[in-house]
C-alpha cells in the first residue's frame, strides 16, 4: 500500500513528467493559454494515459513476451495509443465541440506526446505489476494536469502585465516554465526513486 502511495507521489510531484522529466512539453506550452482548455487537455491525457497503460501492459505480458517479439514493443504501443487518441477525439467532438475547437491540433498530437509513450515504456522498464502501472500512469496524468493548470493560471496572469517587447509571447512563457520547474525541484528527496 505504501509503495503505491510512494509511486503516486513520485509521479505527481517529485518526478513530475513535465517539469522534472521534461516530457510532454508540446501540449504544455501549446494548450496552456487558458485554464479551462488546460483542464480539458489534462482530462483527455489522464484518460489516454491510464487506458493506454492498461492495454499496453496486457499486450506486453500476454502477447509480446510469450511470442518473443519484444522488439515490436514500440510499434505495438504506438498503434494502441493512436487508436485511443482517435477514440478520445471522436468523443470530445461529439460531447464538447467548444473544447474540440479550442484544443485544435493538439488533440491528435497526444499520439506523439512523448509522455504517453514514455509512461507505457517506463511501466515495462520498471517491471511494475498491473496495479503499480495503473497507479503510476494515473499519477503521471495527474502530474501532467497539475503542471498544465498551474502554468495556465500563470499565463492568464501574465496577459495582464506589461511584459517588455522582447519577452512577449513564447519567451516569457518559457522563462516562467523554467521557474515553475525550479519550484518543483523543491520536492526532490521527498521520496526515493
Amino acid at each position, binding site marked *: 500500500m505504501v509503495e503505491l502511495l510512494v509511486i503516486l507521489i513520485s509521479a505527481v510531484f517529485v518526478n513530475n513528467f513535465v517539469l522534472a522529466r521534461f516530457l510532454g512539453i508540446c501540449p504544455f506550452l501549446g494548450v496552456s493559454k487558458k485554464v479551462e482548455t488546460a483542464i480539458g487537455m489534462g482530462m483527455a491525457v489522464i484518460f489516454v494515459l491510464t487506458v493506454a497503460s492498461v492495454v499496453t501492459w496486457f499486450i506486453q505480458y500476454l502477447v509480446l513476451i510469450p511470442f518473443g517479439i519484444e522488439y*515490436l514493443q514500440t510499434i505495438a504501443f504506438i498503434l494502441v495509443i493512436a487508436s485511443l487518441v482517435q477514440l478520445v477525439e471522436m*468523443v470530445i*467532438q461529439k460531447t464538447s465541440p467548444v473544447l474540440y475547437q479550442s484544443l485544435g491540433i493538439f488533440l491528435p498530437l497526444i499520439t506523439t506526446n512523448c509522455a504517453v509513450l514514455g509512461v507505457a515504456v517506463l511501466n515495462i522498464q520498471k517491471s511494475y505489476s498491473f496495479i503499480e502501472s495503473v497507479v503510476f500512469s494515473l499519477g503521471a496524468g495527474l502530474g501532467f494536469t497539475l503542471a498544465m493548470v498551474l502554468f495556465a493560471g500563470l499565463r492568464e496572469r501574465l496577459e495582464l502585465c506589461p511584459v517588455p517587447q522582447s519577452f512577449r509571447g513564447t519567451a516569457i512563457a518559457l522563462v516562467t516554465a523554467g521557474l515553475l520547474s525550479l519550484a518543483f525541484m523543491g520536492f526532490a528527496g521527498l521520496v526515493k526513486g
Partner: protein
Amino acid sequence: MLAAVLSIGGIGLVAAAALGLAAKKFAVEVDPRELAILEALPGANCGACGYPGCAGYAKAVAEGTISPNLCTPGGADTVEAIAKIMGIEAITAEPQVAVVLCQGDNRKATQKYRYLGLTDCNAAQKIADGPKTCPGGCLGMGSCQRACPFGAIEMTPEGLAVISREKCTGCTKCVAVCPRQVIKMTPLEAVTHVLCNSHDKGAAVRKYCQVGCIACQICKKTAPEAYMIEDFLARVEYPQHAQAVAAVEKCPTKCIRDFSSGYPEGSSFAPPTVPVAKDNAA
C-alpha cells in the same frame, strides 16, 4: 515472423473494429462545404462580418442563408472562392478603406487641458469631452491602433492616427472604437480627402488648429462637383473623386490631402502609388 505479423495485425484489427463502432456511435454531422469555406477565409477572426469569428461565418454561409460577400478583409478573391464552393454568383462590393479625417497633431492643434490619465481615447473623452480643444479632432491615444486586428494603424510621434491604405481591409473596427467618429470609411479609389472633422465656424477653428477646414468654399469653387460644404465643413463627394485633386493646391489651410503624394506629416508609411488591388489582406 508469423507471430509478429499476426500480433500486430491482430491488434490493428481489434483497434479498427473498436474505432468503427465508435465512429458510428459518436458521429458528428459536418458539412464539408463549411470546412472548405473556413479554409478560404482569412482566419483573422476580426468579426467584421458580424459573426463570431471565421468559424461562425463559415457555418452561416454553409447553411445557405447568408451572402458570401460579408468578409471585407478577405477581399474579392475570398468572395469568389466562397461563391464557387457554394455554387452561386459572386457579387463583390466596392473595396473601402478607413481614413482618419484629421491632421491636427500636437504641433498643429491646441489642448484645452493637460491630461494625466489612462492612455485611452474613450477614457479621455469622458473627461470634459477630451483634452483636444477641437471637438472633432483625433485625440491621438491609440485606441484605434489597438483595435485594428491587421496592424494597419500607426500613431505619429506627435500624436496623430494614420491608417495605411494598403494594410487596411475595411473591417471597420477602428470606426466603432473611436469616440470622436473622426475615422470614416471611404472608397479605395478615392485618394483625395478633406482631413478635418470640425463643424465649428472658420474663425473658431483657426483659434485651435492650423490645418482645420474653415469652410472658405475655395475648394467648391475650384471643383464644384467634387466638393460639398455642410455645417462649415467641406467633404469630398466620392463618386466624383477624380476631380477633387484640383483643389488640393488651392486650399489655404492645406487640410485637403491627396494620398497618392503621401500620408500626413509624421507618418512612416510610404506613399501608395495607385489604389492597390487587394489579394487576401490578412
